[in-house]
C-alpha cells in the first residue's frame, strides 16, 4: 500500500507524478476523480518524447464549460509515489496557466486501486487491486 502526504487545506490535491515514455520526467498533477482520463500538458507530452504533430488518435472530452478534441497517447508507465501503472492512456491537454499544474490524475489510473483520502492527517492511500 502506498501512503502519500498531501496538504488537506489546499484548494486542489497535488502530487508529484512520474511520466515515462522515451524518458522519465516528474510533473505536478492534481487528483481528480471526476476526470475519466488522466490528462497531461503538451509540454509534458513533448518532454517525454511525443511528437505532437505525429499523433493520429484523437478523443473528444468535455470539461465544465466546453468540449475539446485532444490527442490520446499511451505512456510506458505513470507513477504516483510507488504506485505505478504500465501502459496508461492519457489525453494531452494544457490546462490554463493559472492552475499552475501539468495535468490531472484521472479515473483510468485511480481505478487500479482502492483509494483513501484522510483529510485529518493529509494522507492519500493507494492499495492496488488484485
Amino acid at each position: 500500500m502506498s501512503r502519500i502526504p498531501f496538504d488537506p487545506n489546499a484548494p486542489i490535491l497535488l502530487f508529484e507524478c512520474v511520466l515515462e515514455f522515451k524518458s522519465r520526467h516528474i510533473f505536478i498533477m492534481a487528483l481528480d476523480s471526476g476526470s475519466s482520463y488522466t490528462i497531461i500538458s503538451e509540454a509534458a507530452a513533448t518532454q517525454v518524447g511525443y511528437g505532437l504533430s505525429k499523433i493520429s488518435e484523437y478523443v473528444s472530452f468535455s470539461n465544465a464549460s466546453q468540449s475539446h478534441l485532444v490527442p490520446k497517447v499511451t505512456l510506458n508507465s505513470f507513477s504516483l509515489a510507488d504506485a505505478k501503472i504500465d501502459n496508461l492512456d492519457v489525453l494531452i491537454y494544457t490546462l490554463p496557466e493559472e492552475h499552475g499544474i501539468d495535468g490531472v490524475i484521472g479515473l483510468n489510473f485511480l481505478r487500479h486501486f482502492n483509494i483513501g483520502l484522510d483529510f485529518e492527517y493529509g494522507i492519500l492511500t493507494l492499495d492496488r487491486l488484485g
Partner: protein
Amino acid sequence: MEILDVPEVEKQYPDEWLWFEVYETDELNRPIKGKLLAHSPSRAALDEFMNKRVGVYHHTYRIYTGPKPKKGMAVVL
C-alpha cells in the same frame, strides 16, 4: 550550475515556473537533488526553452512555485 537541494531552490524563486534535471529522489519519487536548468514567471517562456531541449535530459522535474491555483481563483477541473 551546481547540484542543489531542490526544495531549497524552489523557495528562492517564488511565483515562477522551474525546470530541474533530477539527480536524486526520495522513496515517493519526489525530487531531492537536482540542477536548475531554467526558471521564468512565464509558462510559455519555459515551454519554449524546454521544447528546444527535448531528448537532452532524461530525468527532469517541472513545478510552479506560486499558489495553485492562483490566489482568489476557484477551480472546476
